[in-house]
């Protein structure tokens, strides 16, 4: 049985200018100890998927329209607030994309760091501080003892991001949802953080949902990858298969855009066109207007995510009928 099973999650934002279907029917499962990469177009609903699981979608304007997310027999999307508090922040923790906005500028790092411990465990403030300090050291903050009482603005972008990571890991969660946790980190510190996550995974069997744009990080860390476009999953496979033989035209185009694989001095390949307006109904495949393989059928048939090989599914009707 998977640790987490998400079925048909739909989250929209009801704004003055219309209803935005940010997440539009997402289903996936996550096993114990598994690392699932979530990649895709900026604005495709990766963060909103994570927020929905964490109960952090601002409502209104947000609304969870449908779906279930089963964790240990409990539906995270519909459980009682008291039950949710027992799980979120303790058994499921999240690292946010914006470290500065998710740290309180008026509170010292120390207070924010140990808050989850004080809430979820019977622990004295002094003991919590000891663990907070150890965690700050584990994420590579130097002179942690001297700097733990600083305010967020006194830390660099990467240091704040590491504080967020320490806060998420301090309760030893069963699932870590990491939304671009290493974007502000240099490659050596990034490598150190990824090692720390791997270590906690092998020690605690922690499962990880890792949202990132860095396909290099995905290659090294994730067991399986899910590609999102316009609120839906368009392809999923084990990491090796996804990099070696991507099938969905969006995944292929994404891979073609990686700067390091293109010659210097030339204009970089980019996917032509703009992503669709999620407040308008989309006929057929959302990627069709930008897809070089699109035919008439793509603009009328709603593609479903269907397995084309064991463990490899794609939402492209032309791939499914073996035309491309």
């Amino acid at each position, binding site marked *: 049985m998977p640790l987490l099973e998400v079925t048909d999650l739909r989250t929209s934002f009801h*704004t003055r*200018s219309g209803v935005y279907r940010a997440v539009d029917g997402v289903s996936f499962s996550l096993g114990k100890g598994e690392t699932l990469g979530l*990649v*895709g*177009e*900026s*604005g495709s609903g990766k*963060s909103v998927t994570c927020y929905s699981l964490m109960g952090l979608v601002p409502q209104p304007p947000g609304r969870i329209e449908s779906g279930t997310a089963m964790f240990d027999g409990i539906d995270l999307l519909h459980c009682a607030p008291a039950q949710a508090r027992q799980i979120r922040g303790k058994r499921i923790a999240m690292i946010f*994309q*914006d470290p*500065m*906005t998710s740290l309180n500028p008026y509170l010292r790092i120390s207070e924010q760091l140990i808050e989850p411990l004080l809430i979820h465990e019977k622990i004295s403030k002094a003991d919590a501080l000891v663990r907070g300090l150890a965690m700050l050291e584990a994420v*590579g903050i*130097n*002179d942690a003892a*001297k*700097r733990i*009482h*600083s305010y967020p603005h*006194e*830390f*660099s*972008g*990467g*240091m704040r991001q590491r504080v967020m990571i320490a806060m998420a890991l301090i309760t030893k969660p069963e699932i870590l949802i990491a939304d*671009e946790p290493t*974007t*502000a*980190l*240099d*490659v*050596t*510190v*990034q*490598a150190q953080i990824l090692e720390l996550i791997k270590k906690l995974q092998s020690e605690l069997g922690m499962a990880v949902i890792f949202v990132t*744009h*860095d*396909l*290099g*990080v995905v*290659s090294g860390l994730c067991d399986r990858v899910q590609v999102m476009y316009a609120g839906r999953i368009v392809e999923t496979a084990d*990491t*090796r298969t996804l*990099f*070696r033989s991507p099938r969905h035209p969006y995944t292929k185009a*994404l*891979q073609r*855009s*990686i*700067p*390091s*694989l*293109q010659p*210097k001095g030339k*204009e*970089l390949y*980019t*996917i032509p066109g*703009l992503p669709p*307006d999620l407040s308008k109904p989309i006929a057929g495949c959302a990627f069709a207007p930008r897809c070089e393989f699109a035919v008439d059928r793509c603009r009328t048939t709603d593609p479903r995510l269907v397995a084309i090989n064991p463990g490899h599914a794609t939402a492209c009707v032309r791939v499914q009928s073996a035309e491309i």
Partner: protein
Amino acid sequence: MPAPILQLNDVKTHFPVSSGFFVRHQTGTVKAVDGVTLSVARGEVLGLVGESGCGKSTLARTILQLVPTTGGTVILEGRNLTSASAAEMLLARRDLQMVFQDPFASLNPRMTVYATLAEPLLVHKVVPPDQVRARVTALMEKVGLSPRFLEKYPHEFSGGQRQRIAIARALALEPKVIIADEPVSALDVSIQAQILNLLSKLCREMNLALIFIAHDLSVVKHISDRVAVMYLGKIVELGPAVEVIEHPRHPYTRALVSAIPTPDPDIERGKKRLVLPGDPPSPLNPPAGCAFHPRCPYVQEKCKVSVPPLIPCGPNREAACVRLDEIGAQ
């Protein structure tokens, strides 16, 4: 070499650090930027890389005079910004724009995208009022955002969309120099490529000088003409981007380059990394001599004695290591 548009001479920015939970007292100084000399020419892209916390953002904020400079001078087209009055600085701002690392914190949450982009155009009277809307729409298209977003507020956007609004705002005044602090790290690779193409094109066509701060060395290599590597407040290596990243000379640059993740699961998992021993140094209590010596695989006694200066090591290249000749090129 053409005359530089921006010149930094021995720039220093130090912060006092205080500690204590109840009573805070100064316990030290963080030398966030500690003697940086650099120049950027018109149309040039200078990549700035280095460990988290080494002072890249502080250097950027120092150039814009957003933090008080402890020492040295910042010269923009012959104007000394370190001694400029508020009025002079306002004028200079038009030529010198910044894209901040944290786009959410730098966008006003109560202003729509339209207002955010129109404001600089109106304040600096760039175009007549009746043309503002057209200009704003053009800016949105430049960064790959649909004009239908104009009446939205920052919180209604994804991280990557906000980043592009911040870039559009920096471009609004057609500045001569842009300092972009991690401008593409929150973007998917296709939009990354789009922004990189846009920035390169602006540099070429409008002779824009760009200081590009990033952690992704493959992106830095792609866009930059030259790259400067920082370690603990100082530049430790400087030279043509491809040369420095493909054939790094300073031991820190070597470690940095070896840690670049490759988008290939087979290579990535089998790869040998030059793992740096020990922790990043404390900026509060920097090591004596070369700041990198406690983690350097090539360390010798002489490295602990004095701070190594940047010395020439090849065409247009410099590195700050006393053992360059002994450890050779990679």
